[in-house]
């Protein structure tokens, strides 16, 4: 299909005619996503067979340590691995990303670009480096609006920008709109970033570590803001974080990533109350808690994240797992499948159900 017919027919034809028969019914459906980067040392498998779904109005928390593939996942949903000057080293992406009945991995770049910023938007970790230092906050948001509303006048775009700044809680938005990013505080900048992401009313919002670069006092405000805005706009939200505490209250579902794969996924309460994977136990154990005796030490996950070029054989977590011996060697040799371990609850672990329940109730839970 040529570009010309596509643009002219885009508005009314696409939803009905182009919706393929195998399109999932969910709003967002990621199927067997793989993002591999060929390097001189070998292929870095940043994401290796990830699947999940997300409905409008729901929040998914993707949790994992650095290098687990969570940011790469979000960038590849937005198609940001396909653009740039570094084409020869570009990622090899396979699998399917269905957004509202449209597959994005095989879609042409212009179409994905058109969706970017409009139907799906992203908030980045560090709002200082994520905003251009030479353009005013207003100019940058106005630009974001006008890319997808080419017919809007500058005046309309500015009005919309000021409304958005007001909505995200920036005082005197009609004056601050002309300020530059360096004149904003960290929290204000992140609010402005959120305003920029939401200016086109996206139905999917991805927040990549939205509070990591902020003061602790500001973190809660930003999270509250994201939650309120989600209620208001009814969008689907993915929050990416290394901090289980961030998603504890916000997320409906939690997906735990390790070594580019999902190792546990389920409703938020289930993950906190009955986690089934030793790595998730480790994450929970390394969360500082105010209601715990201060003399107790945190229980960090021992060892370091796996190499994404040479993942450990079998279960990628086995070199760091204290319970490997209980699997009779399976965890060293066989890659565990994601299996249903409860209602809407999946985990990839070789431990038997009885072992898992015994370890959780007797060894882990009492210490948390």
């Amino acid at each position, binding site marked *: 299909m040529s570009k010309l017919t596509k643009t002219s027919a885009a508005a009314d034809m696409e939803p009905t005619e182009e919706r393929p028969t195998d399109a999932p019914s969910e709003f967002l459906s990621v199927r067997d996503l793989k993002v591999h980067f060929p390097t001189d040392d070998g292929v870095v498998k940043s994401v290796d067979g990830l699947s999940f779904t997300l409905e409008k109005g729901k929040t998914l928390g993707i949790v994992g340590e650095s290098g687990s593939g969570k940011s790469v996942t979000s960038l590849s949903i937005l198609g940001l691995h396909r653009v740039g000057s570094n084409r020869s080293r570009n990622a090899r992406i396979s699998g399917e990303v269905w957004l509202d009945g449209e597959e994005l991995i095989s879609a042409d770049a212009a179409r994905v*670009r058109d969706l970017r910023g409009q139907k799906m938007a992203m908030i980045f970790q*560090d709002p200082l480096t*994520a905003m251009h230092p030479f353009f*005013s906050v207003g100019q940058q948001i106005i630009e974001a609006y006008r890319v997808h509303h080419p017919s809007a006048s500058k005046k309309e775009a500015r009005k919309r920008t000021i409304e958005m700044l007001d909505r995200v809680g920036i005082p005197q938005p009609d004056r601050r709109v002309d300020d530059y990013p360096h*004149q904003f505080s960290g929290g204000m900048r992140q609010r402005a*970033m959120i305003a*920029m992401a939401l200016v086109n009313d996206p139905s999917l919002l991805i927040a990549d570590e939205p509070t990591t670069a902020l003061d602790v006092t500001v973190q809660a405000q930003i999270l509250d803001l994201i939650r309120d805005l989600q209620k208001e706009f009814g969008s689907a939200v993915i929050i990416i974080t290394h901090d289980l505490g961030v998603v504890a209250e916000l997320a409906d579902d939690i997906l735990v990533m390790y070594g580019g794969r999902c190792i546990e996924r389920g409703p938020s309460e289930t993950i906190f109350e009955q986690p089934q994977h030793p790595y998730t136990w480790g994450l929970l154990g390394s969360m500082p808690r105010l209601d715990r005796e201060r003399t107790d030490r945190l229980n960090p996950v021992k060892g370091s994240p796996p190499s994404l070029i040479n993942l450990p054989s079998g279960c990628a977590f086995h070199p760091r797992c204290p319970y490997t011996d209980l699997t009779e060697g399976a965890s060293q040799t066989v890659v565990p499948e994601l299996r249903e371990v409860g209602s809407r609850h999946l985990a990839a672990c070789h431990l038997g159900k009885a072992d898992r329940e015994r370890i959780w109730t007797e060894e882990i839970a009492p210490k948390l």
Partner: protein
Amino acid sequence: MLVYLIRRLVNVAVLLLVVSAITFGIFFMVPKLTGSDPALLYVGKIADKAAVEGIRHKMGLDKSIAEQYFLFLKGLFVGRDYSQGTDVTHCSAPCFGYSFKTEQEVWPLLLDRLPVTLSLASGASVIWLVVGTGTGIVSALRRRSVLDRATMVTALAGVSLPIYFTGLLALSIFVNTLGWLPNNYVNFTDDPVEWARNLILPWITLAFLYAATYARLTRATLLEVLGEDYIRTARAKGLKENKVIGKHALRSTMTPILTVFGLDIGALIGGAVLTEKTFDLRGLGYEAVQAISQSDLPVILGVTLFAAFFVIMANLVVDLLYAVVDPRVRLG
């Protein structure tokens, strides 16, 4: 902004004063320390003692160095008189004194040489800016391509080959062998076409050297900028790639280029010594070489101060442009 401008202009004045004091000190003290006599240089070696003393008094060389410097400054701003008995010579402001060799005033000489150097610098800088940054951008966007590698090898050659090699090569090919181009400077006001035709070789030769540096600088800066988070943000907004590069990336790439350009153009107006010598262009650089070889102190001093003035002014302009480009400078 106005306060900033005034502050900067005061800075420029102070800086020029310091530069003038230092150069004056060097040029008028060195002969004293090494035992050569400026008065003798004026008169020539076969002069009798009375004539030398007369000149020494006329030029004020018998006064203390501080007094001489004060007279020099006075000459710059209000002009000065040189008197020998009843014979008074007035040198109107700005007075840089007289050449030892030609006994001509230095200032008109500098003004006479300036257009040549300005012509050379302006034409060459336009070429190297366009070609240098252009190829740098293309190289960065097509990194690791054949074009990128070819450009960078050419740029390496440009940086490594000295002007007197590329210049002489160009002269011998295009002027002497092929006879395509003339090599006689013509004033722009006399005949713009001939002006350009005569200058095209020195422009290209000089631009080749600078374009190489600019191509490498542009490439490196742009590649760095393209890795910035705000470029990812621009893409995440759904901007087209040409807008991401053209608006967001290039705006940041400009700043270091601007800095280097300010330094280069200032230094070049002070005199592109090798190029002027190679192409026999009688500009400031040519004059400087001439003066140095003849120990013509007033001319050396004049060219040096003139060059310093241009370097400082170019930097001022760059700093002002900085404030236009980067809001953090403007408000901070």
